[in-house]
Structures are given as C-alpha cells and as structure tokens.
C-alpha cells in the first residue's frame, strides 16, 4: 500500500505528512496529525462537523482527499483562536450558551467565522442559510444564531463601521 507525501500549510504552519489515496482530509487531520478538533459526524458531507477553511472557502474535510491538500492553505478549529485570544465567534458562543454537548461546535465556529470573513452584517436569514450545512441536535440553533449575529456586531464595532 503506497503512501503519498503531501506538503501543505495548516493554521499558518508548514506541515508534511504521508497518507493513502483514500484517506480524507478529515482522516489525515484526526488520525495522522492529531488535530482532533474537527469531528466526524456522518462522512457524507451532510452534517458539517468536519468543516475546515481551505484558501478562504469553508468546506467539509470529509469530502476532500488528504492528497489534495498539496500547496493549499488550511485553517481548522485549532487555528481560529490566536494563542489564548478567542475569536469573537468563540467568545460569543460561550456568552450566549450556544453549545450544549459541544460536538457540532467546532464545525459551526469554523463555518461562522468563514461567514464573517466575507460578510460582517449578515441578516438572521442569511446566517441561518449559511449555517444550514451544520447540523446541531442540542440547541435548536436559536442561541447559535444569536451568538453569530452578536459576534458580527462586535467585529463591526472593532472595524469602526
């Protein structure tokens, strides 16, 4: 069983690994690189718990092969906070109690961060549709949406808009 050598950038750091062709990026993150923050909920791209950001676009790491990462720039949940400074989305999730079991939380935070990277003033409806690919079974989404909208407000204020 031959492996492929991949060089890529994850959370700003250069990373190298070996993987088999059929290993998804999620498999590589969790089983080869010890980055277990991205979760496997379905392995069919339906739940979003494995969400990562690749070259600025949020996608399911279970729908990407590990070998495809060559030369790209990847951000995972582990790279959302800057050291011990939480991203506003993370802080607001805590303040709004937007998590109960916390399993879908990494995927939601990555997806929400990707939204706020392109739109600092989303409406409730836009936010709900953007996050429709992130399944949550615990919260009913109410506090999640409030947290994201509040984070957007904080980020708008910081940007002086």
């Amino acid at each position: 069983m031959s492996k492929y050598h991949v060089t890529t950038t994850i959370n700003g750091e250069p990373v190298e690994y070996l993987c088999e062709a059929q290993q998804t990026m999620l498999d590589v993150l969790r089983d080869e690189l010890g980055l277990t923050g991205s979760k496997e909920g379905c392995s069919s791209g339906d739940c979003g718990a494995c969400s990562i950001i690749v070259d600025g676009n949020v996608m399911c790491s279970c729908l990407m092969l590990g070998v495809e990462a060559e030369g790209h720039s990847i951000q995972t949940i582990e790279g959302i906070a800057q050291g011990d400074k939480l991203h506003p989305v993370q802080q607001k999730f805590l303040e709004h109690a937007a998590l109960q079991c916390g399993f879908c939380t990494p995927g939601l935070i990555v997806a929400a961060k990707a939204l706020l990277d392109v739109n600092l003033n989303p409406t409730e409806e836009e936010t709900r549709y953007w996050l429709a690919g992130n399944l949550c079974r615990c919260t009913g989404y109410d506090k999640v949406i409030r947290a994201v909208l509040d984070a957007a407000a904080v980020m708008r204020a910081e940007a002086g808009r």
Partner: protein
Amino acid sequence: MAIDGLKVVGTRPIRPDGVDKVIGRAAFGADMVMPGMLWGKIKRSPHAHARILSIDTSKARALPGVKAVVTAADFPSIPSEEAFMGEGPMNFRDLSRNCMAADKVLYDGHAVAAVAATSQAIAEEAVELIDVKYEVLPHVIDVEAAMAPDAPILHEDLFTSGVEPKPTKPSNIAKKVGFTKGDVAAGFKEAEVVIERRYTTQPVHQAYIEPHACVVSAAPDGQCTIWSSSQGQFMVRAYCAKLLGIDIANIRVVPAEIGGGFGGKTLVYLEPVALALSKQAGRPVKIVMSREEVFRGTGPAAGSVIEVKLGAKRDGRIVAAELLLKYQAGAFPGSPVGPGCMCAFAMYDLPNVNIVGYDVVSNRPKVAAYRAPGAPNSSFGVESCLDELARMLKIDPLRLREINAAKDGTKTAHGPTFTNIGYVQTVEAAKNHPHYKAPLGPNQGRGVASGFWFNIGGESSAACHINEDGTATVVEGNPDIGGSRASMAMMAAEVLGIPYDRVRPVVGDTSSIGFTFLTGGSRVTFATGMAVTQAAEKVVVELKKRAAMIWDISPEAVEWKDGYAVPAGANAGNFEPLSLAEIALKSGRTGGPISAEVSINAQGAGPGFATHICDVEVDPETGHVKILRYTAIQDVGRAIHPSYVEGQIQGGVAQGIGWALNEEYIYDKDGRLDNAGFLDYRIPVASDMPMIEPVMIEVPNPRHPFGARGVGEVPIVPPMAAVANAIADATGMRMRDLPISPPKLRAALDAGTLKEAAE
C-alpha cells in the same frame, strides 16, 4: 421555597468546559488514542430477520494485520434477567444478543461479528472476508402487522405477559400494561359529546451528531480500562461486567465528553465487543460507528398507534378518557409504552380513565430511550384529540385544558398525588402571552399543546475537596450533556460562598467517585445537584469546626457567611472573619485535608409540565410547512443556570418539530433501512427553524435545596401536537399520521378538496 439573596444560582456564568469546546480541545469518544491501539469494525446483518446458519471467520483471521475476530461464541451465555434501569427495564440476555447476535439476526444492521486490525482499511477488508450463511425468514416491522396472529414470530420463547390466562403460543406482543381509574363505561354514558380518534407515528432516531465510539484496553489479568462517550460511565461498567462476566472493580470507565445522547446512549453497543476483541488481541481496541451504523444498528424511538376516546360535557369537562397504545419495541421487548401510558393524561384531573398499552417486538433495531420516552407518542394523540374536541365544543383549546387541569392535590390516574406543580401556570402564561393574540395571515395557523414528564431522582455521589489555596474541586459522576457541570459548580459555590470560578467541577471516572446513576430522566441537576450541595454543606460544617479550633471556641458558636467563618454574635468572641482560603491554608495543622463525599438516593424529583404555542404557514400547492413562531412555556422549578435551561427547552422543541414534519425510518420491502444517513433522515437545519422563545415559570420543588426540577425532557412532548394543531388551524386538514411530510399533506389537502367538490 425560593431563596432570595442567591449570589450564583440563577446567574449565567460561562460554563467551565466551554473554552475547551470552542477551541476543539475537548476530548470526545473518538478523540482518544492508546499506544498499540487496533481498529475494530463490526459486521452487520443485511437481513431484517434470518437464522444464522454458520459464520466462517477463517479468511478474516488469515488476513495480515488482523489480530482478533469475535462472534457471539466469544461472549458468555447470559440467562434472561430483568433489571430496572431508570425509565425502562433491561434484560441482560437481550442486551447481550443485541450487541452480538446469537442464533438469529433480528434487524438490518444487527451485529454478527467483529474484527480488530492494525488499520481501519484492513479491518474493513477483514469484515468483508467474514462469510455468514443465513436462512432468511419473513420479517415484520409495522407494529400492528407484528401483532397479527399470523405474523412472523421473532422469539419462540416470548409469551405475552400481563394477560390472563397465560398464553401458550409465542407472540410478538411482549407485554400488556395499563391501569384504570373510576368507571369509564359510566363516564361515557354521562358524556354529552364523545370523540374517538386514531393516530400513528413512525420510528425516529435521537440523531445525536456524535456516533458511538470507545477505546478499550483489556489486560491479561482481567483489569480493563474503557474510554467511551456514554450517558453513564457506571452503566457502561455494570453492563460490561454483566455481559462479559468480569468483576465490577476490574473495570474502570473513563467518561469522554459526549456529543449528544438524548437517551440513545444510555446503553452499550460497542464497549462489550471492544472488550472481547481487546482480550483476544492483547492490545487496546478502538471502535467508532459510522453514521450509517448509528441509524441501522442503534435504537430509535418506537413507532406507534395511539387510539384516543374522550367523553365530555358541553361545558368542557372531560368525564371519561380511554387510551390504547401499541408501541414498537424493536428486536427485543422494552418499549416505553409504560411511561407513554402514565404521561398521556397526567396534566388533567379526570374522574374515569382506562389506559391499555402493548409492547410489541418487530424487526427493526431495539428501541432505546429518546427524551421523555413514550410520552411524545401518546401526547401527540391525546393533545391532538383535545384540539379536535375543543373545536367540536367551540371552546378555546387553552381554556379546555384549564377546565380539566391537574393542580396541587390532584390524584393522578397512574397513582401519585401531585404537590407543588406548575401546570396551570403554564396554561395561564400561554393565554396571556402576546404570541397567543398575534394576528395570522393567509395559509397560517396556530396550535397549542401541553406535555408532562415525571422526572426521576436516583443514586448520585459527589465529592467536594477544598484545595490548599482555598479553591474547591467538585467531583461528580454524570456525563455533561447539556451544561450540568456549570450548575454543579454554581450550587457548590453558592453553598461555600466563594466565587464561581474558584470552584472547578470534574466528571470523575468510575474509580474516582462513588456510584452514580446515569445522565437521563432529567435527573442530574436535581439528584446530583442535591449530592453536590450536601457535600458542600458538609464541607462548610467542617470549615466551621476548623475555625472554631483556630479561635478556640465551640463549633456551635461559628457561622458561615459569604465564604467566611464569623463568630455567631458578640458573645462568641471578637474575631476577624476567617476566609475559606485562610482556613484551607491552615488545614494541615487543624486536622488534615478538608473534603466530603456524599452518596444519596435522591427522592422527591418534581414533575415537569409545559404548554407550547406554535404558528405555521402552509404552502397548499406543495404541502410545505414553515414554522413561523414558537413559544415554549415550562415550569422549571428553579433555573440554576437559566441559559442552559433555555437550551434544553429549545433543543427539545427542535427535535419535536423534526419528529412532526420530516423525520422517519423508511424501510424497503426487504426490511432494510432506506435512509440511513443525514441526507434522507431529515433533522431540522438552521434555516428550518425560527427563534424559539422559552418562557420559564418557577414553581420551586421543595425537595431540592435550590428548588430545581428536571427540565430536559418535557420540551419534546408537546411539539408534535402543537404543529399538527397549527396545521389543522391553517388548512382545516387534520393530520393524524406522523411525519406530516409535504407529499402527505398535499395529498390530504387534495383529497379534502375533492371531498368538498363532491359534496
């Protein structure tokens, strides 16, 4: 008794495990690795009902990298033995056969063998090399089809219990239960209006986002470590001990963070199998279910038939009520038909009641608890029927409930007499809520429904340790599925009088804290909170003793105020208050470490009641239903951490809405599950839901030190009827079969239109 002047309880601090969870550091079941670990994989039956003729594992064993292969032969034979486990009985022989099929497979997805290998790919290949020969048998899934006299029989040794004379022919009807109050025949004679209706539901899954996972290590001397995400590490320990014949003390279960359970993780599937593999291989084994395995191989809620008959006076008083429930138990007996019977009329004070329920096995996965198990089904029927009755009588549906409401002192049909309940308050609050009077537009409708869950107490242990610097560690034994850890720290902080973030809660493993019953039954804030509070109170007693020692006065002369020992009045002496930290610092010289552990069997869990209001908009051309607005009013006793109580309400509502509109198990003609994934098992997504307004009414439970009652399960009980009633209001069409998916609603509307046109 509401306690004023609380400093921590009732506030909304950030949960202590929150940062770990938002940065991806929290460790769930699949996040653990152990050195030398193997990957396990399970072989599952493709047939809904079949005899296992032979299992040939030789090719799998011969595959390089395969270190262990197990079948039912590797598990001890367990006699049929029933133990009460919280909200439903558990037969350990059945549990063993569910984890690994013995002579028969009873559902598509039933485990028949398992392998452990050095990589996931090899394990998958090995599973395919296991050759199982089946004799396929006719199968039956629908509950009434399974009850029919000529139905294929799942268990030749299952005879219906609860009927006289004792049957001699095996049946799929495992049990008949029920109870009566008063005289229904007389009641119906007295009634001025009688309504009789039939409702049906399909099986639905808890659909937690985290698939089951564990990493298990069995040493040659029989000592085992299990890392798993479950709703109870002590349950995992007990069940594994039972199923594998191991001494309980030889198993240590470390609870991972759990990614949702809702009752579906109150039993074991993987851990006993992983133990058997690990024992054989001599290495740790990790097994993680795929999403497909979760749907095919773990227990959904019961599909059901609910027949309701109500007799009432024209003024709205219900004088007679009858209920017939038929619940699917899945492959082995044990549906929650009992609680379904108990909860259906619990919020009403009815003079004459007759309830009968049947527990029926059929060829789908064994049922597992799902949030207020049994109650959502029966309440869907009863609360819909009440709505139909209200329309018949031209009485407002909330008024109808008010007229018949149970109050303090009501003796329920299922036995207990209510004290300190808040049902009427939820109905009042609904009537007065602006939502109830808000205007509706075209194709829009409004529905209301009520719900009840009895909540449990049970065994809990908790320890409170004072650390040398005056911080405190609270150890308890309940996996945190909804933010309970925060509430434990809050209650302890309140008692100790120190800031919340100087109290750190820990969910301990089975070797680190006393026996604790699992997380379920809405019991943790109540029962474990009681244990934590008592442990903290014992610590306070000790702290006062130590202060007395330091001051050389009697302990009776010391009071504890806001985290300080103070002399109880001028007579005790003129001493400066001693902080907890100062006492802690001196603890080595005043008698040693200050800590207390408490084990209790908490009694007096207060029941929960709710009334919900739901607005929908229907697109009559497509049958699509949009939830416009939802208000959920619930008596929560006392909200220790209001945000997490709100969260429980909102989460339960969302699940109920999914159950009402789109969730169902779809089987093909061979009894195979057709929608074993999140694509076609449709749970609500963020864009499906509006904001959900939780209204918390606090009627404190006097049996809990802070007045808490269980809150987690009640919220899932009313939504299905609330949605169905709203759809009836919007369209005039009464939907009595769940889910109310668009094709069904469109077909019903068309049929209704045809009927109108024909008349």
